[in-house]
Each structure stands twice: as structure tokens, then as C-alpha cells.
């Protein structure tokens, strides 16, 4: 399959994520949309790591050619997990105080 399909799929996922972040009002859903963005990136990286033009470009035709991108995916997963733990803690803290995860509550700082 040509690389364009992967790029299109990843950008579609990414755009869904961005639109979700910008339009939804529920903190948890926004959070899920951010995860969707990260996973779109993961998909794209894995696709790039295996695609022929990439190997031709770097001039390395051995098996380890795209290994750095695959490694990067693992790092993204680890960091995403760290972010989830901190983020959910913050959302829970918020919920305890206002009993809602609606970000429309977040306008006390405006004035």
C-alpha cells in the first residue's frame, strides 16, 4: 500500500482529535481526543518507519532502518501514560471541588 493512504488515515484521526479538543466541553472527552491525536502520530511514525522511500532516502537498506521511529512510538506511549496519570489526577481534583468535569466552569479567572 502506498504511504499516502497511511498519511491520509493519520491526518484524519489527527483532525478528529483536534476538532474534538476545540469543540467539546467535557474535560474527559477532550482528554480522549488528545490521546487520539497521539495515536494518530504513532500510526504515522510506524508507517514512515517501514516505507520504501524512507529507506532509499537514508541509503540504509538494512533491517534496522526505521528502528528509531518505532522506538519513538514507545517513548510517546510512555509519556502519554505519564500525562494520563497527572491529567486524570487534576480532573479528579477539579471534580471534587465543583462536582463537574465541564470546562465551562473554567471561567472564574477571566476577570
Amino acid at each position: 500500500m502506498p504511504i499516502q493512504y497511511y498519511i491520509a488515515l493519520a491526518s484524519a484521526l489527527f483532525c478528529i482529535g483536534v476538532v474534538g479538543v476545540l469543540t467539546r466541553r467535557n474535560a474527559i472527552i477532550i482528554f480522549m481526543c488528545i490521546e487520539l491525536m497521539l495515536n494518530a502520530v504513532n500510526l504515522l511514525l510506524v508507517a514512515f518507519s517501514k516505507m520504501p522511500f524512507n529507506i532509499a532516502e537514508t541509503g540504509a537498506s538494512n533491517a534496522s532502518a526505521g528502528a528509531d521511529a518505532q522506538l519513538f512510538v514507545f517513548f510517546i506511549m510512555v509519556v502519554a501514560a505519564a500525562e494520563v496519570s497527572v491529567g486524570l489526577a487534576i480532573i479528579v481534583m477539579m471534580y471534587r471541588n465543583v462536582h463537574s468535569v465541564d470546562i465551562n466552569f473554567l471561567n472564574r479567572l477571566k476577570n
Partner: protein
Amino acid sequence: MICSIIVRNKGSFRHIAAFGLLILLIANILETYGKDFFHVNTMQLLQFDRFGFLFNSIALGATLIYVLLTGKEIEKSGKYAAEYFTLIFFVLCGIFILSAYDNLLMLFLGIEIMSIPLYILTGSDKRNLKSNEAALKYFLMGAFSTGLMLMGIALMYGGTGTFQLEVQRISVGMYKGVSFLEITGLLFLMVAMAFKVSAAPFHFWTPDVYDGAPAVFTSFMATIVKAAAFVAFIKLCDVRMTATLGAIDWKLLFALIIVFTLLIGNITAVFQQSVKRMLAYSSIAQAGFMLFALFNVNDVAKEGLLLYTAAYSLATIGIFAILVKMKDYTFEGYNGLAKTQPVLAATNTVFLLSLAGIPLTAGFFAKYYMLAAVVKTGSYIWLVVVGVLFAAVSVYYYFRVIQAMYFRNGNAATETITFSFKTGLIILAAIIILIGILPQVLLNWFYF
């Protein structure tokens, strides 16, 4: 190398933290002069150069002063004092990675190691709704910009086939030189970094977060962390954006961002009633000035960025140190401070003058270097004019505080001020004036 993670499990108080920072600072300065303590093979992921070392020294020095001045407030801001210091050390660890990264993987990790502890610090005041709100907002915005940054990195990888900062451009097959993917990726990355340094139009989280977070941590966020993001940004500009200058006009893009940032930051700062919020907007305005360094990366710009980091961080840390001692954060709260606490008022004046860029303070030379970097390009002289005009606007809102302290009658209520706190402030003010008179003291390190 210097990226030492200091693990503190229990009972770490500000003295231990300050001591650790001092040791790190000394080690870092020695390392700058070629002493190799231990060598780690970083597989070309990190590259330590003089600029990075010098920045690390400044960041460490500023953090040391920060901990010494406001350590007591850090302990007071929540139940878990030791954790706050540990988180600050984690942030510093991320900053060291950012000042030395040579690979986009390290850029990503550095930014994340720096940001995630900050989300926690922002929300450290758990009972306070404002702090919660600031933390959530900061977290959502930060995670969103991380997503954008990762997309940028992935696209750049697709375009060049490597994560290294330095790309050997070989024209094999249809991908000659700079590809479309790389440019798109760079644009994503630029947006993400603009989020981190709070440049307009991606600044909107800044005032809310800086206002809501406990004042001690705002001080840290607005100074050292922001400067570190700038160092990462300038490195990116230096290598990647210069290489792709043929494909896209970065200069025009940056010129627009600079003008927009200066406009928003300065104009909104004028209308603020709370000093804390005014400082948040002023930090956007100062970010606009720091962006001048990215406009045209040359030696003057790099030196200027270091000087700006030092001048801006020290002055802002001083102002916030005084701010957390105040009972009332509005301008009225400062009325008549000169009568009740003359030392505080005098040092605060020095810090504010430095931020405004009045000669004889560090801020003047910092701004001068920034503008000189643009003048060196030969074009875009109008940008310099805009910069100077907005510097003049900024004088207005900084002087409002000075006016409140000296020329208004009132009873500025402060918490008890210890003698050592006053001494610290005086030393800090002396450093700022010293840098203002002899900027070469700091910059000689650069040429060596």
C-alpha cells in the same frame, strides 16, 4: 553529564535543595571550562556546547536565588513541601535536556519532563478553585500542544528520514532537499513551541494559568521554564529553519508573531488591576522581545537571549518574591509601600526598571542586544521601531506600580519580612545593576 536527577525521598527542605543547586551550579561551571566529570555516550542524542552550558548556569543560578528567596513560601503553599522541591528538580532536568538536545526525540522528552511536573505545581493548592482551574487549563493546553508537536516531528521524520537535528540533504529520487512534509512538520512544531513560550496567537492560556497558580510557582514558570523553551526554540530555528529558508519565509512569519505578541501583551497589560495578572501579560510582552532572537539567529541573538534570560528571570523572581509577601495583589495593595517597607519598595523599583529596560539596569542591555540582532539583518528595520515603541508602552504599566509605592498614600499590608529576605533582595538588585553596568561580566563566558 549534568542532567543529574536528584532523588529525594523524604525530608528535603529548602536548605538541602539550595545546597543541591549550589553543587550543580559549581559542577556546571567547572564543566563549562572543560572539566569532564564522567562521560556518557549519548548516541548523538544530546550535544553539549558552550551556549547550553552557559544557559544551564544561568538557569541554575536563577533557581538558586529563587529557592533562597521564596523557599519558605514554597513550603507554605501546600502540605507536601519536599515534593515541590523534587518537582522543581525534575523541571530542571528537563531544562538541561532542552539546552543540549540534538535529536527531536530529546526535544520531545525534554519538553515533557519539563511540563508534566509543572502541571502538578500549578495545581498544588488543592483546595483553591483557581489553582485547580489553572492546572486543568494548563494541562489541556499543554497536552494539546504536545500532540501538535508530535505530529510535527512525525511529519518531519517522513520528510527527512531522520530525527537528528542536522540533516544531510541528499537528493535521491523524488525527495530533493526540502520536502513538503518537512515544511508542514516544521509549521506544526513552530505552533507547538509558540504555545510553550506563550507567543500570540497561542498565548491565551498564559494569563489564566499564571494568575491561578500559586504565586511562588508562577514565578518559576514565567522565568526559567519559559527561557528554557526559548533555548529549545532557538536551537530548532538555528538548524532546521535556516536550512529551509528557501522553501518558506520564516522571517516574515516571525515578524508577524513578534508584532502580534508585543501588541497583545503590552496593550492588555495596561488595563489590568491586579499586579499578578499584569505580570502575566508583561511576561507575554517580554516573550515578544525574546522572539527577536529567533528572528535572525546569529551570535548577537544568542548572547542577547542569554542576557535577556538572566535579566528577565532575576528581575521577575525578585518582583514575585515581593508579591507573595503582599497581602493584596492589586495595585492599591502597593499604595504607600515605600513608607512601611522602604527596602522592599526600593528593590522592587530596581526590578521593575530592569523589566522596562531603563539604562543602568540589566534589562536595558538585554533589549539592546535583541534589537541589535535584528538590525544586523539589514532588513526589517520597521520591526525595531515597533519594538522600541512597545518598550515605551511597557514603561507605563511598570511605573504604575512604582507610582503606587511612592506617591500614593495607603497602608500596604505585608507579611513579616525577615532581615535575610531583605538582604537577599538587595543582593539581587545589586546583581541586576551590575549586569546593567557591565554586561560583559556575563558575556565574557561566551567568548572565553
